[in-house]
């Protein structure tokens, strides 16, 4: 009798467990990552338990103090600890890249203690690249979040003057949920910098066509008119 009772509990328990595993509604955090990276994350999660975000946060506090003390290598190390320990926190990628590509990079450019301009330039680019790499890695963990793509676009545009990559990043960012309307405009501006008026006009036209109720419709129309005036193309003719 007791064995039957135990067996019933076992069967019912396993059945229910399996049932819930099958209907598990949301993917695991980082479910889209390659298995190796996922395993690493789950291992950190298991070993550190509930302290995992706290370890990441404490590394992040050290990032802030490193920034205040202008210790860029220490800052970078702590950004890596924070992003590795809790990669699902967008803040670490976003702000970490900002510290590297802007704060560290610009500080090196303006470093008066270094007399050699070329060394300053080299260091400026070094930190800008670090920031870019960090954001690129961040987009592996957050492939569908507009913010990192937007930051990456800005970084390409402002720090590396790479308008092709900037355009691609802004465009991608604008396609994801939650992206503000200006992101799509930024893609357009980045495209303008590439010097292909036909492509630019095509982009703006398509943007209006795709979402005619955009809040920034007026702005785009104005821009379109201005661009058409500036180009030799007939404003009344459709864009080739």
């Amino acid at each position, binding site marked *: 009798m*007791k*064995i039957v*009772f*135990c*067996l*019933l*509990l*076992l069967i*019912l*328990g*396993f*059945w*229910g*467990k*399996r*049932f*819930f*595993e099958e*209907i*598990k*509604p*949301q993917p*695991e*955090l980082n479910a889209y990552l390659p*298995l190796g990276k*996922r*395993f690493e994350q*789950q*291992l950190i*999660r*298991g*070993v550190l*338990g*509930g*302290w*995992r*975000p*706290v370890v*990441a*946060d*404490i590394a*992040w*506090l050290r990032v*802030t103090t490193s920034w205040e003390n202008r210790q860029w290598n220490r800052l970078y190390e702590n950004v890596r600890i924070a992003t590795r320990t809790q990669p*699902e*926190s*967008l*803040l670490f990628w976003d*702000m970490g890249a900002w510290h590297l590509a802007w704060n560290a990079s610009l500080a090196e450019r303006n470093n008066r203690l270094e007399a050699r301009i070329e060394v300053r330039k080299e260091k400026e680019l070094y930190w800008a690249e670090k920031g870019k790499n960090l954001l690129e890695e961040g987009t592996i963990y957050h492939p569908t979040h507009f913010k990192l793509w937007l930051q990456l676009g800005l970084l390409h545009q402002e720090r590396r003057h790479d308008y092709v990559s900037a355009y691609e990043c802004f465009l991608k960012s604008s396609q994801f949920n939650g992206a503000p309307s200006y992101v799509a405009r930024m893609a357009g501006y980045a495209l303008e910098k590439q010097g292909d008026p036909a492509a630019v006009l095509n982009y703006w036209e398509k943007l209006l066509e795709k979402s005619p109720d955009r809040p920034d419709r007026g702005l785009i129309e104005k821009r379109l008119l201005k661009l058409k005036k500036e180009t030799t193309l007939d404003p009344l003719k459709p864009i080739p």
Partner: protein
Amino acid sequence: MSALYLRLSTLTGLTVRDLLRQNVLYLILIPAALTLLTLPLFTALTFEEQIKFMRDFCYGTMSIFGLFLAIIATAQSLSNDLEQKTIFTILAKPLNRWEYLVSKGMGIGLILFFALTILTVLSAGLFAYQEKSLLEAAIGNATHPLSSQELQRFSDQLWSPALLMAVLILYLKLILMVGFTLLFSTVASSSLFTIFTSLMIYLIGHLQSTAREWVMGSEGLSVGMKWVVGLLSVILPDMSFYEGAERILLGATPGLSYLIPPLGYTFFNLLWILGLSTWIFESREFR
């Protein structure tokens, strides 16, 4: 009142009283409270960072100390009864062994609830204190005054009711660990073995789903090996069911239905754990 209810409630009550009298509860609860009290020492740069840190810190403290409490209290509860031979007078009474296990589990469950409630209330107090001091500092900041919208957003994030849901999900996770620890206690002769095995299971539980996917997806593996892995995955817990708490900490504000998967998963796991541990415990001899 039925005799079953009387038996269960009496032993549950005895377990609770025992744990309240034992040092293990205070040895875990007091350091946890002291850890929480260090929260005001950490100040982050931005409000967003500060809120994240406060949430993570309080949840992390509850999670770690709660895990220790769940595992150590459960492992000691049964081994104490064996060492002090109380089990002989208890099980000599007309009480089923499954009732003994369920009562132990319920007693520890109540203690965990009590401990998490205390830590939640303490966290709320710290949140209120931090909020007050941070806002005072922000309002007094002439160069970067906060807009009323920003203030509201800050308060909303800090006092999100979803955080309570995260604590509830943590509670379910800890209850599952109580179940596993109780299962190991039924076979173990030392509490150290039980504690170690339970911690291992906790770790493996986090790796389980990824490891299973990897093994099942790999080409060269024999069918037999896949069967073994499949069987293990049936027994081992999948802790990714409780990741919802982490999502809440990262800012998600889900509805109550969010609780159903971890609730159902915990319940059915406890069922089979009870079945297996009763089976083992029934056949266990006490010399």
